[in-house]
């Protein structure tokens, strides 16, 4: 019978895993995927994706040296080092050397300044400005009297985004904004910046560049997502080899010391692995893709299952008949129900990410539990294995002797500290900023910022998203929105902005522009030519040149121009045929401008104001609030279920995890100057393990083997999760900083709350 049950469970596990394998698990790492679907329009999600993709693929190197020639030589050498890489495509200066837009569109695409003057009927002024240019001793833009006497094209080029801090010098990009001579190299990655193969190919090359730079006393500064991504990957690798190896070694030594055998390690790992595998399989089958955060935290929460194995192993060690006793079954069942109740509460929130974690953790726990129940009695051979007597002795020596006086003191201390902790937490505030997700050290971020500033890319992360059914409607709508932007710029609330319709006006606007220019020619050409004493022939040729050049710029022609190339990531086509454009904001962006644009977006259909950083912080904050609610509900639900069994003694089970959680939370808040989402997730783990400890001890009436079992599983969890406090990766650190003190407090407090009696132990 037991063998049949075990076999059926094996078939189920294999079945579920192979179905999921056939579907193929797909992972998701975008933070936006954690947002509730209804909260963001599909257009803005696509826009954010395309913006981050466009940014994510760029790698920029800035090379500085006090002497121009040396900076130049260094740039050429670094260029040849990187030329070998198949994943780096150099963005050559050639496209910047071309004219940013063909001059034949000079009458249909006007600069903002010229357009404003002509719209206001300042014909004479436009003519006088052109004359002024002509009479200046050295012209800042060349004047072509026949093709463009009024300097319309020169004005467009001066306004154009391509006249930035970068100029080309002998086939290289030279920066004009730095006090030291500086050259820039631009690269586009042919593969994803987060892919490990990209990073492993790139790392030795970048190291070569750094070595070259330090050998030649050249300063090289880099900017690009791939730098941060590879830093994060390196750091994770390093931490796995230090913290990870440390905790695995610690766990192995612990098991060896306790049992003089490594078998229990195997009995612990099998249920957890089966649990995590089944959880991943079912999550894959239910959700379109599994979020990496789900996987990380879900697998962590499944770690509670170490309790079931340890409890079973410790209870059965030295027993001749290897079977599940009724009392053992009851305590395991209670442990499971309480933890699953605690985690399943997450499923009630509207957040897809939390629902996934709830499903993952609950399924994982149930599967681990079933594995312990069905497989361990069959596969494990515990008859020859005993808890080593010295461990029992040690436990006995270290465990405080229970007395009612000490009990009262402990309860008083725990309650008092919890009240103080609660007041402190109540007075502190949350820190939901992006820093909790940021792995890069500050000097790497500063280096990135320096490069971007030197290139004049002072772009805000906030942008406006305009959506329409077709390109003409889109451009007209953008021109409408730009009226507000122009006013804000004029009033000094906004530095500058970059939009598509500046270089690709709507067809309607282009026709209006040509009409405006023809009026300029009609009224101003003759007096202009008279003033400079030009011949009638020149005047005639100028008029002819205008008459023959009424070319309208089309989308496809714009897309092949250097300007179109540069702005291509700002134009997004959607699957439903809609098309969106992004207006980026540069330089100053006052609070007044922000609120006016938000106001505009809320009133105008399909105009969205998108602030990705605030969105992410906002998401983290809302997740935190929801999760806190879940935690409170979990405590209430679990308490009321356990109340049925334990009646008046319920508080003995709830008090240790509750007060330990409050104290750990207060300590973490004190250390970090605020709390965040990841702290709360860790509290769920403290709750789960703490409950198990209380229930197991209560059910076994404080048997020594139980105390040893919960002690072992607590130390194992401390080694596995508590050591994360040493991590440099913020998300992991914020998890560890709660688990470490939390589990320690539960463990220290429990023997004062419930008596551990060594006399009743079977092993003694």
């Amino acid at each position, binding site marked *: 019978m037991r063998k049949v049950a075990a076999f059926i469970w094996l078939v189920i596990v294999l079945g579920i895993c192979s179905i999921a394998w056939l579907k193929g698990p797909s992972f998701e790492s975008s933070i936006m995927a954690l947002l509730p679907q209804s909260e963001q329009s599909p257009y803005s999600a696509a826009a954010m994706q395309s913006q981050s993709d466009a940014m994510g693929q760029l790698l920029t190197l800035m090379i500085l040296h006090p002497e121009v020639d040396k900076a130049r030589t260094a740039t050429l050498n670094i260029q040849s080092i990187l030329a070998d890489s198949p994943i780096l495509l150099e963005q050559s200066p050639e496209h910047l050397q071309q004219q940013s837009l063909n001059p034949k569109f000079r009458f249909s695409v006007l600069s903002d300044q010229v357009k404003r003057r002509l719209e206001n009927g300042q014909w004479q002024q436009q003519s006088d*400005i052109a004359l*002024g240019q002509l009479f200046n*001793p*050295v012209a*800042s833009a060349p004047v072509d009297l026949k093709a463009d006497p009024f300097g319309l094209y020169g004005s467009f080029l001066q306004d154009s985004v391509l006249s930035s*801090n970068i100029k080309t010098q002998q086939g290289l990009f030279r920066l004009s904004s730095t006090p030291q001579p500086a050259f820039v190299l631009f690269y586009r990655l042919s593969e994803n910046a987060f892919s490990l193969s990209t990073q492993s190919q790139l790392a030795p090359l970048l190291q070569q560049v750094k070595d070259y730079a330090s050998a030649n006393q050249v300063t090289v500064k880099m900017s690009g997502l791939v730098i941060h991504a590879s830093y994060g990957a390196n750091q994770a690798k390093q931490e796995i080899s230090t913290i990870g190896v440390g905790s695995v070694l610690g766990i192995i030594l612990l098991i060896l010391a306790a049992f003089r055998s490594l078998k229990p390690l195997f009995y612990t790992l099998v249920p957890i692995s089966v649990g995590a595998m089944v959880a991943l399989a079912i999550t894959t089958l239910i959700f379109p893709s599994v979020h990496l955060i789900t996987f990380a935290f879900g697998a962590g929460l499944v770690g509670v299952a170490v309790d079931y194995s340890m409890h079973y192993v410790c209870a059965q060690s030295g027993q001749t008949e290897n079977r599940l006793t009724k009392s053992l079954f009851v305590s395991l069942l209670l442990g499971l129900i309480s933890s699953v109740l605690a985690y399943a509460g997450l499923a009630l929130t509207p957040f897809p990410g939390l629902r996934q974690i709830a499903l993952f953790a609950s399924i994982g726990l149930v599967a681990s539990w079933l594995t312990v129940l069905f497989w361990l009695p069959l596969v494990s051979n515990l008859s020859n294995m005993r808890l080593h007597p010295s461990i029992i002795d040690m436990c006995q020596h270290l465990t405080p002797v229970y007395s009612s006086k000490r009990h009262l003191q402990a309860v008083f201390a725990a309650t008092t500290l919890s009240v103080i902790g609660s007041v402190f937490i109540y007075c502190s505030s949350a820190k939901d900023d992006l820093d909790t997700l940021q792995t890069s050290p500050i000097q790497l971020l500063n280096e990135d910022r320096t490069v971007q500033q030197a290139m004049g890319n002072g772009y805000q992360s906030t942008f406006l998203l305009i959506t329409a059914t077709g390109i003409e409607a889109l451009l007209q709508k953008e021109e409408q929105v730009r009226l507000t932007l122009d006013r804000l710029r004029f009033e000094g609330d906004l530095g500058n902005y970059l939009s598509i319709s500046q270089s690709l006006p709507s067809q309607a606007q282009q026709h209006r522009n040509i009409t405006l220019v023809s009026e300029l020619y009609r009224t101003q050409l003759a007096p202009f030519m008279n003033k400079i*004493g*030009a*011949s009638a022939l020149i005047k005639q040729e100028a008029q002819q040149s205008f008459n023959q050049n009424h070319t309208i710029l089309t989308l496809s022609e714009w897309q092949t121009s250097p300007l179109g190339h540069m702005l291509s990531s700002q134009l997004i086509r959607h699957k439903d045929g809609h098309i969106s454009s992004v207006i980026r904001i540069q330089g100053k962006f006052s609070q007044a401008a922000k609120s006016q644009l938000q106001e505009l977006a809320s009133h105008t259909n399909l105009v969205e104001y998108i602030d990705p950083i605030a969105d992410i912080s906002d998401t983290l904050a809302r997740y935190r609030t929801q999760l806190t609610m879940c935690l409170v509900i979990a405590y209430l639900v679990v308490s009321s279920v356990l109340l049925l069994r334990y009646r008046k003694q319920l508080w003995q089970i709830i008090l240790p995890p509750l007060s330990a959680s409050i104290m750990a939370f207060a300590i973490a808040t004190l250390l970090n100057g605020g709390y965040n989402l990841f702290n709360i997730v860790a509290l769920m783990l403290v709750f789960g393990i703490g409950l198990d400890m209380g229930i197991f001890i209560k059910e076994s009436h404080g048997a020594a083997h139980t105390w040893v079992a919960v002690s072992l599983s607590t130390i194992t969890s401390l080694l596995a999760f508590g050591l994360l406090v040493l991590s440099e990766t913020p998300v992991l650190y914020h998890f560890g900083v709660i688990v470490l003190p939390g589990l320690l407090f539960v463990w220290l407090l429990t023997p004062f709350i419930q008596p551990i009696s060594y006399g009743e132990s079977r092993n003694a």
Partner: protein
Amino acid sequence: MKSAILFLIFFSHAIWAASVDELKELLHTPEQLSGHFDQEKYLAAVDTSLKSSGTFAYIAEQEISWHTLAPIENTLTLTPNQIITAQNGQQVSVLDSQNNPVVQVFSDLFFGVMTADWDLLQTYFHIEAHTSQEQWQAQLTPSDVNIAQAITHVSLSGGAFLEQVVLQEVNGNSTTIQFSELLAEGSQ
């Protein structure tokens, strides 16, 4: 600092430095200078000469203003960071030279020529100088690639002050400026 740079120039370009040194002795670079100018700009493509005249004024290291009075009224003001164009007392354009390399070069060139700032000019040109008694003449050939794309050469001449500038462009255009009625204040 400035003397350190000059010191370096003396020893690395001994022959050239001697004549620039002579230039510096002949040419006064006052704190403030103002005067009248006559300009003739020849446009090769349309075979037309544009004549203009007006006044100019500069304050060393601060500002140059170029006030064209005939045939139109136009004021060009250069500061180390900006180029401002005004007509009839109204600003019509402000160019930030820090964000615009073309404007930066233009500004340096104008400042360098007008104030005969040899150190500044030396970053863009090879300078060849001739002196005879109280008169001097300097031939400037671009060493900077960007400038060489637009300008063939510049020649400056004068006595105590700069008197004539001739600028020859690659496209055949040329500009000749004569200064007169010069009034100086302070001396460096």
